């Protein structure tokens, strides 16, 4: 039998129109449309594109929840075994829509999904964990190369064949780790990698570091005497008994606690939630991680105007970069809104 595939594309690839037709509402057509022809050619006899669902990029972006519901309602009656979306290349709204449709259809219908995007498409970071995103060029010139890879991956998923590494299959990392057995122990492999690195030869890491973005340095503080200073820490300092249960590692949250009435922290009122270092010293004297005592004294001496009344805290111990980024953005927003001039961030 032939597997049933539904294909998602935008108004542009459907030939309906460009930006002037971006408000096109979701519709579904029998069989292939536009790039679906190439998709069908690559799928061969094993799978058939039974329908193509089309939605304008603008309509999707402006009505995400509604559009997703409408698209799901159109797709479900075709009882697909696989959904393919795009490829969206580096088109941001199309990528977001493709990823969103894959994520939702995958979840609601319980079927595998595949899409294709350029690594810099914002849809990648949003949906890489929810679907397979094949790496593509940044424009439609890469269609001919991308579609066979997407089709091949889709067929493997349909047949339940094992999916190997992102590099071998051509998809962008999903952040999933698999256990594998290798004949040589880690120490040997690491030493070989190091030797290659020292010789200036190419090597492939088994554990890529996350990529961190860069932020331009903030302007210097002009008037310390009139400044409000805030304290933020990744050292896990929190009120005694960790009332919000901030995790000892891989933190999913941060806490905000008042120091309005504190001249200093003490083992009576505070402790650390951090599970990545010996907590003895921080628990004995939490000022060793969060220097409330010194800052309160300096505030009284008039070195600066005010110690901000709340400190923000989380545990920096295997914390996913995405979480840390979100905590940082939320905390910064609050501090700015409250007129804080500078922040001292302590980490262990």
């Amino acid at each position, binding site marked *: 039998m032939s597997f049933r595939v539904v294909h998602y594309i935008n108004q542009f690839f459907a030939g309906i129109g460009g930006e002037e037709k971006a408000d096109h509402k979701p519709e579904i057509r029998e069989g292939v449309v536009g790039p679906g022809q190439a998709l069908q050619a690559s799928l061969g006899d094993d799978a058939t594109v039974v329908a193509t669902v089309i939605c304008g990029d603008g309509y999707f972006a402006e009505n995400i929840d509604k559009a997703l519901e409408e698209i799901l309602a159109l797709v479900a009656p075709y009882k697909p075994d696989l959904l393919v979306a795009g490829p969206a290349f580096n088109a941001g709204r199309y990528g977001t829509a493709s990823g969103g449709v894959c994520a939702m259809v995958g979840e609601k219908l319980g079927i595998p999904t595949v899409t294709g995007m350029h690594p810099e498409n914002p849809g990648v970071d949003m949906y890489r964990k929810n679907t397979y995103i094949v790496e593509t060029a940044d424009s439609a010139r890469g269609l001919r190369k991308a579609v066979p890879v997407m089709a091949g991956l889709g067929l493997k998923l349909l047949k339940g064949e094992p999916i190997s590494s992102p590099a071998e299959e051509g998809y962008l990392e999903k952040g999933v780790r698999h256990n594998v057995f290798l004949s040589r122990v880690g120490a040997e492999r690491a030493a070989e990698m190091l030797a290659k690195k020292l010789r200036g030869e190419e090597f492939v890491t088994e554990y890529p570091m996350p990529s961190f973005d860069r932020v331009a340095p903030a302007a210097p503080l002009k008037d310390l005497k009139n400044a409000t200073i805030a304290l933020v820490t990744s050292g896990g300092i929190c009120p005694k008994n960790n009332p919000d249960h901030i995790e000892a590692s891989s933190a999913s949250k941060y806490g905000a606690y008042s120091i309005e009435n504190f001249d200093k922290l003490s083992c009576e009122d505070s402790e650390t939630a951090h599970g990545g270092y010996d907590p003895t010293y921080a628990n004995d004297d939490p000022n060793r991680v969060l220097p409330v005592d010194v800052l309160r004294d300096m505030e009284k001496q008039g070195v600066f105007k005010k110690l901000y009344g709340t400190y923000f805290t989380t545990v920096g111990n295997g914390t996913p970069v995405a979480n840390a980024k979100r905590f940082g953005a939320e905390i910064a927003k609050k501090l700015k809104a409250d007129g804080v001039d500078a922040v001292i961030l*302590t980490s262990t």
Partner: protein
Amino acid sequence: MCTIVPISLTVGANRIIPAVAIPYPLGDPAKTPEEEYEIRKHLVEKSFKALQTEVSEQTVFND
């Protein structure tokens, strides 16, 4: 303020003050409480100095 400066550099901090040790970045349990307070005060003063310094790239403020 941090103990493992290479991590702060990796994650992109722009004004970095090297601290004392991982379990007590702003103290030293081997010293008296008064000495510890002085260590902490010195580090906070350094961070104020860093905050008031114009930097164009990641900068580590050593003594």
